[in-house]
């Protein structure tokens, strides 16, 4: 017990996690962040630039970087890669036509060396919309099984509109990051 509490103290400094949230425009990134933080989601303009939200989740402090997904500003995503512990990729599961774009952008992101150590959570968002693909179908389209085996990843169906699935996703991400941070000490 003594040893554990010492380690806990060392860890106290590291209870911050940096989460980068990206995905195509209109996938619901900002809505997810606001919803999980219990804020009003009824008026959200498309993100011109980025939002940073610091929330306390379980016993961790999450710094969530919610970066706009419009095509013009995707090239700026890379400015946010440094020091990322967790990566959240948000998919609009009802936007079938742009799944190819979605796959391409995700592939590009995963080639990025600075993100190679980050745990990857994929939110198959908008599950509340009739006609949306299921998380399993999204996983198939994005060919997630072919991902580098060293990557820690999980796909979770969710609805930022109702809030369903959001906690499941964040629970996994936070636990996964926490277990990695333990390893480094």
């Amino acid at each position: 017990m003594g040893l554990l509490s010492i380690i806990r103290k060392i860890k106290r400094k590291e209870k911050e996690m940096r989460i980068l949230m990206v995905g195509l425009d209109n996938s619901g990134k900002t809505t997810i962040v606001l919803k999980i933080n219990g804020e009003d989601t009824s008026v959200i303009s498309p993100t011109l630039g980025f939002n940073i939200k610091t929330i306390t989740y379980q016993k961790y402090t999450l710094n969530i970087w919610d970066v706009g997904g419009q095509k013009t500003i995707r090239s700026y995503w890379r400015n946010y890669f440094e020091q990322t512990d967790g990566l959240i990729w948000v998919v609009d599961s009802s936007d079938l036509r742009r799944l190819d774009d979605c796959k391409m952008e995700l592939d590009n992101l995963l080639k990025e060396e600075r993100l190679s150590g980050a745990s990857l959570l994929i939110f198959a968002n908008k599950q509340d919309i009739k006609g949306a693909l299921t998380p399993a179908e999204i996983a198939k389209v994005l060919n997630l099984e072919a991902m580098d085996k060293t990557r820690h990843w999980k796909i979770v169906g969710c609805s930022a509109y109702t809030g369903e699935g959001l906690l499941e996703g964040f629970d996994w991400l936070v636990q996964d990051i926490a277990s990695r941070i333990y390893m480094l000490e």
Partner: protein
Amino acid sequence: MEGEADRSDASADASALRKKHLAMLERLSNRHQSSSRPDKPGSSPPPAAASFESTSSFLSLFGESKRSIESRLGQCRLADPSLLKLQFDEISTSIADLEKLVAESSYYLPSYEVRSSLKAVSDLRQALDNLSSELIPKKKFSFKNKPARKEPTAPQPKGAEAENRDSRPAAKAGSLAVAVPDSPGFRNRANEVLAKDVRGLEIGEFTLSDLESCEVRLIGCARALFVHRLRNCRVYAGPVTGSVLIEEAENCVFLLASHQIRIHNAKASDFYLRVRSRPIVEDCSGVRFAPYRLHYRGIERDLEDARLGEETGNWSKVDDFKWLRAAQSPNWSVLPENERIETVDISNLSA
């Protein structure tokens, strides 16, 4: 910072933390147990619970799995090439399990053991990588050759993009391996009046794509509206409770009410909007904006239900992602009042 730690209830705290930690370990081990495949030949080391807080039992467990992985690596050279990929995957999963074991045990292990175990893990991984690049051509999850990007026709980015898009349907058929049920919408039509009353249908998303010289009338609420490649069309739509996404429209008129509206690659089109947030344009030119002007019997109630009952004035607060400056964007403008259309009444759908 550390001094603030509540010493008084430190012991109670520590035991609570310990409990939590154990719970976390258990969850983690459950997780990787459930994720490892059942048909795997005795590879996965048992979860850490068994070896809890004993360095020697950790070391023997670790050594055992390490030897097993090494011997399986050795066997790969003799294996049937068609099964190689599967074997590598299995070995890779075993290595990940081993790494997890180290991670879970790291808090009680001497730091030397942690370091050397991690080194061993990374050596194993390296050996696997070397072997797999030697035995099978590397198959990375990537799009290395995206020829459309480098095509000589690149000078005008718009042209290149159009080509890119044209080449997509083929790619799509391949990648969309799942059977996609046809979602509601109108596609590939010309010179028609396309009308639909979606009230009571609990419609999700609605799609308008590849329409030429059509008039679209939608009565009732949808959750999302996707618009793609419209020319010389008029689109009169009831409220959308989620978002509207428009890509590629030319010489069109849209009457839309929605929570969010995104307009990409539109040219010479007019938008009569009611929107809860700021509409955005990207890669547009000659697009003009005015307030929503649609009527059908019961539209007030639909708008109310969609929380679009009130004019917000947002129709004129357009953000242009291609014009990030304070001065007015040259790509869009407010439609002069004397050029705006009268209120459109689509109560009689088919007229």
